[in-house]
């Protein structure tokens, strides 16, 4: 089930919240777990058992790791837990990729197993790993399997994150408070995320589809596509994160922020501190630092960066273009660590252009159906194949989606936040905004519903990861 759908908004969510707020406090986690299992089973009935097994393994290994913490068996149990989680991920996500590559290298024709990817496996696997590793590092293991299940399977962040570390919400899993203030802020955040997804990301998705279907490609059209996809993936994923964070607040949790206006970054290093923050911090804490981080000399640090970014690329998808995408960032981050960062500091404008250029290019690689298409699209950005500079279709789509693109560009910056912040500072402005907010939220929900009823539906991009 996806958040931006009628069944979720008008069937599941009202029922779920009603049940959640009606049951007594000690049953809230159970309600959350049951609701989350139903939410997951809606899209993947058969894989709900795989997730259940993953939760049980995480639970059992958590207890064993705690019991033997500081001793060799503790390390072994922690290792087995990580391997077990990763083996599920490897099997379901990467088997076809490995078979394809074995066939390509050896000339064999081994049949592809065609294993369907369980939705959200990349996210909940990382949460289970974070749990057992946190326990290994000293966090108290969860004794109640329902509570642990509620953490791992919690529907707001189950499918596309943010990747919530156990240590961040362990206390609230045991006891949390609900208030109008927290709930209202959750609703605001959820509605905003829903609007980002349905009103903006889906339109950029339409533009990308129009580009793919177009016969009259041109350099301009390739750049329009690059811009559209960069905006689509941002509003799609950050919209989902907003919805997850908002729902989390409605149910009494405070999840980590996942995006912080990444497109205003002045370096790639800064970009990755603002983009998919929970994934970046997961890799930093559970891969980069355990590998030695920057503590073992420059050479080792660069190797660690390379390893982390290859894994980051590979985490996003079982295809070489994702690896290529990760390697591009590894290269840029390495250059920045060595000397580029100092150079970028000299010109704010050039540094922004540099970031936007490479991010746009990277997402063109990222969105290729395969490496061939990714490289062909890259070529198209620079006029390869003798394509014209401008085409009628490109100009038309620019006019057609011009306002959406403009709103997207403005919305990707903190401009609106700054403006409303300034209005809030004045008494009259604050009153007006307080009055307008409920009306604006209602209007937003109704317009989003209208778009959903009309059938403007696109699955979330990050579901495929």
């Amino acid at each position: 089930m996806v958040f931006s759908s009628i069944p979720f908004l008008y069937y599941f969510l009202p029922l779920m919240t009603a049940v959640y707020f009606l049951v007594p406090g000690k049953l809230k986690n159970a309600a959350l777990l049951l609701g989350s299992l139903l939410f997951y089973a809606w899209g993947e009935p058969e894989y709900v058992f795989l997730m259940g097994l993953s939760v049980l393994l995480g639970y059992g290994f958590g207890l064993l790791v705690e019991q033997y913490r500081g001793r060799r068996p503790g390390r072994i149990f922690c290792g087995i837990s990580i391997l077990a989680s990763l083996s599920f991920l490897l099997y379901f996500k990467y088997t076809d990729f490995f078979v394809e590559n074995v066939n390509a290298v050896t000339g064999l024709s081994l049949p592809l197993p065609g294993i369907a990817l369980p939705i959200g496996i990349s996210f909940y696997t990382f949460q289970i790993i974070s749990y057992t590793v946190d326990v290994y590092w000293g966090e108290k293991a969860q004794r109640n399997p329902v509570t642990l299940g509620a953490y791992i399977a919690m529907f707001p962040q189950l499918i596309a994150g943010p990747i919530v570390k156990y240590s961040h919400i362990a206390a609230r899993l045991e006891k949390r408070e609900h208030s109008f203030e927290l709930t209202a802020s959750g609703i605001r955040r959820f509605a905003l995320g829903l609007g980002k997804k349905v009103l903006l990301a889906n339109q950029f998705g339409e533009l990308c589809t129009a580009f793919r279907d177009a016969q009259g490609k041109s350099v301009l059209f390739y750049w329009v596509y690059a811009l559209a996809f960069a905006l689509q993936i941002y509003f799609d994923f950050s919209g989902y994160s907003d919805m997850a964070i908002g729902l989390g607040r409605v149910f009494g949790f405070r999840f980590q922020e996942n995006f912080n206006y990444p497109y205003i970054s002045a370096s790639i290093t800064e970009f990755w501190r603002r983009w998919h923050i929970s994934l970046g911090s997961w890799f930093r804490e559970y891969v980069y630092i355990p590998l030695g981080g920057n503590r073992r000399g420059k050479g080792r640090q660069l190797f660690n960066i390379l390893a982390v970014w290859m894994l980051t690329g590979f985490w996003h998808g079982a295809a070489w273009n994702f690896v290529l995408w990760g390697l591009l960032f590894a290269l840029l981050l390495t250059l920045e660590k060595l000397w580029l960062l100092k150079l970028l500091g000299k010109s704010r404008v050039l540094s922004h252009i540099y970031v936007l250029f490479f991010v746009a290019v990277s997402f063109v690689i990222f969105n290729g159906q395969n490496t061939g298409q990714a490289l062909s699209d890259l070529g198209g950005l620079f006029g390869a194949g003798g394509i014209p500079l401008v085409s009628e279709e490109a100009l038309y789509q620019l006019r057609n989606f011009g306002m959406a693109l403009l709103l997207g560009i403005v919305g990707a910056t903190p401009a609106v936040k700054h403006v409303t912040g300034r209005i809030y500072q004045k008494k009259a402005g604050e009153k007006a905004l307080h009055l307008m907010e409920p009306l604006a939220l209602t209007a937003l929900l109704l317009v989003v519903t209208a778009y959903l009823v009309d059938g403007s539906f696109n699955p979330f991009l990050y579901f495929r990861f």
Partner: protein
Amino acid sequence: MHEKMKNKVVCFLTAAIFAAGFLLCLFLPKEKYSYMERRVLAPMPELSGKAVWSGRFMSGFETYAVDAFPFRDAFRRVQALTAAGVFLRKDNHGVYFTGEGYLSTVEYPMNEASLAYASRRFRHICETYLTEENEVYLCVIPDKNCFLARESGHPAMDYEEFERQMAEQADFAEIISVSDLLEKEDYYRTDTHWRQERITDVAGRLAASMGTRISETWEIRDVPADFYGVYYGQAALPVKPDTLRYLTNEALKSYKVYDWQNGKEIPVYDMERAQGRDPYEMFLSGSLSLLTIENPMAEETRELVVFRDSFGSAIAPLLASGYSRVTLVDIRYIQPDRLGNFVDFSGCDVLFLYSTLVLNHSETLK
């Protein structure tokens, strides 16, 4: 309003919206058919263990939930108005609205492979059934984008090139060009089709090119109901309806129309359909694979076979005034290889009369 009060209002208002939505979704009676979209709405899927396990129930329910959503038409209108008014979209799902009140779909670009396929299908018919005694004609009817798209800032095909390519590939037929006789006013504002009362000159040229003459005296009649064409429902915008008009005369009143698909006689203009789901189906009862029009008042015994799409329904009664018998074949609904059982092509004129909309998406031709 204070912060605390605002938070409470936000909570209660949102709860009220979702609760009301939930209750209305559950208890409001469901429509089975959408007149605006001209389609059957998805029913509630069957609930069974097998359907749930396979995911069939869930995917069916998602479609049902959207189709059965309360006040669906009103929400679709809100979407269309938001797209046009807030996002300033030039088209919404491919449908666009011009300042002059015309609705149309973006038909772009020209699909050369589709033109080639259509030509191959026509050639196959000629080679299978026709001899040297048959005169074969081809007429390409430009869709209304030809007159609307460029001036309203939408991409448009090169219609001259379209006709040239069809002519080049259809060397088995004499080309009759009618583009110069048409203008946007000859089409309904809310529908794909042309207006019968404005195409007598087109019918006249076709007849003259085929060596015959059609009646010059026609009475114009209005259908006493608003006509909301196919684009009206797709666009979901508040647009004024059209008035459906038809032509008649004494000869036309004597026509005998036989529907071979359903084995019955039908009227030239079906007034029940004129007020039904798709009023344009009043012309020769809409999408039928094979029908004949007998004209007992014809001045000479001469027969015409028209391979056509829905544009043919309005013009065929006009052409029939110049022939004793007109056979209409729609190869979207009948295999051409079966035609020999039903149609005698001996000595007939044969006209391939197709709109650019069908030729550009000719995968529908059998």
